[in-house]
């Protein structure tokens, strides 16, 4: 649920370019990525210079959030009390359709069902003005 505060879990405290990215995500309530204003290349995490054309000009437009599972891990153990009730939980590396990959929390009934290549949707959830928690949804796509 948007805006829900989960006590005890790490909340990101981004600086510099990460702060610019997360501020854009929170403000638009949509997934955003850094985009080069010169050549249109997307980067994550955001960089001072485009790694394709080396321009220093960029912005943070919203993107669809659609992507595929690139990798994942199912945690059966945690050293963090805040995560104990959620075991087992799945963390997903999503390759967004724009190219960059993001890590997010899988929202799925059966963590063992996650497979590389599945289509997913990344949905940000606001935590603070500076940070949004990325959730990865499987049910909105036609998975095998």
């Amino acid at each position: 649920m948007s805006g829900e505060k989960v006590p005890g879990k790490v909340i990101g405290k981004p600086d510099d370019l990460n702060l610019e990215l997360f501020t854009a995500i929170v403000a638009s309530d949509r997934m955003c990525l850094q985009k080069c204003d010169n050549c249109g290349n997307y980067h994550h995490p955001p960089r001072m210079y485009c790694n394709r054309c080396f321009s220093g000009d960029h912005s943070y437009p919203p993107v669809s959030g659609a992507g595929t599972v690139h990798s994942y891990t199912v945690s059966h153990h945690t050293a963090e009390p805040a995560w104990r009730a959620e075991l087992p939980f799945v963390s997903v590396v999503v390759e967004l359709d724009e190219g960059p990959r993001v890590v997010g929390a899988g929202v799925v009934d059966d963590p063992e069902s996650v497979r590389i290549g599945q289509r997913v949707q990344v949905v940000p959830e606001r935590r603070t003005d500076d940070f949004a928690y990325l959730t990865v949804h499987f049910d909105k796509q036609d998975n095998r």
Partner: protein
Amino acid sequence: MMTAGPKPSTPPAGLSGTAAIVGIGETDYVRGSDKSILQMVLGASMDAINDAGLTPNDIDGILPPPGFVAWDEIAAHLGVKDVRYTSTPQMGGASPTAALLTATMAIAAGVATTVLVPIGWNGYSAIRPKPGARPNRRRFTAAFFETVRNLYAPYGLRSAPWWYALYLQRYVDLYDVPPEAAGAVALACRKHAQLNKRALMRDRPMTMQDYLDSPYITTPLRKLDCCVETDCAAAVVLTSTERARDLPHRPVVYLGGAEGHSAPADELTNRPDVLRLGLHAGAPRAFEMAGVRVSDMDFLEIYDCFTYVVLLQLEALGLAEPGGAADFVKGGTLELGGRYPLNTHGGLMSQGHCWGLNHVVEATRQLRGEAGRSQVEDAELGLVTGYGDLGDGSIAILARGDR
């Protein structure tokens, strides 16, 4: 757009064989030391200097790892009077093995003559302090901690097993790597630890069934895929190969080595190939500098923070094709008596976690012919790898020198 063209493939001139390891020292590997990190590091350093037949006044270069102890306090407490060169590699567990290259460069260039590479930490006690113990004073400065804080830790991915699992699960799924392949790594280390009186896991033998029965931490990593956290320190001393011949032990010559880094180094999920480690880039350069092939190696001391990371490094070294490490490790390849004995001291998995400098110490023993019951017969060439932070790599190819 103009480009710089291909990088020269010629190995750095004049480095191979110019420096040698002449002294080694290490503490016991324990859970809960009564000593401070600085005490342990100084003890291992003094042991290494004594082992080399030298005194602290002979040391003029100090290359400590990041985060725990600094060169100035090491120099001050040991009484080193003329420090000519210091630097600290910033690549976590790859730092000590990378420091061997830096030391060799300093010695070959004449900037320093005799270099101390120390490491120590309270890997166990830092997160399980004894009552009244003071917390660590220092912190790490690598940029990837910013990545962890904002992009991994909010999802419960707060320390190394959870970070590396983000790519290791892809390795397992892409190549159908069976758990028994990782188990073969864990078993070889545990078996070798039984021969080492300083190994934490001595007298605790392990079977494949024990391995398979161990609970998952985070897939694909089981508990027994993870190395053991220990309090410990180690140190080595290098000097010129020429000078080494006058010292008490047979020199162990630095034949070649390299650093290697994935790009980007500060975030591991956005690499074009998330399974390409720093070592994939560094290993070919090291073999070229050394003028030897991986098939010339008599043993392997590979950085074993996690078993699956060892499998990937075997591939990075050229011992197997991508995904082929699982077949490579079958049939006792990695055990003493096999073709490529792995971590003959027990490794990070079963001796203790000393950032891989314990691997350098063990390689030195092997090449001196002083490895006792773990001795690889007629060992003349061996390698050590380092792995740290989000996949930085380092490698050292070492040779038995002339007396």
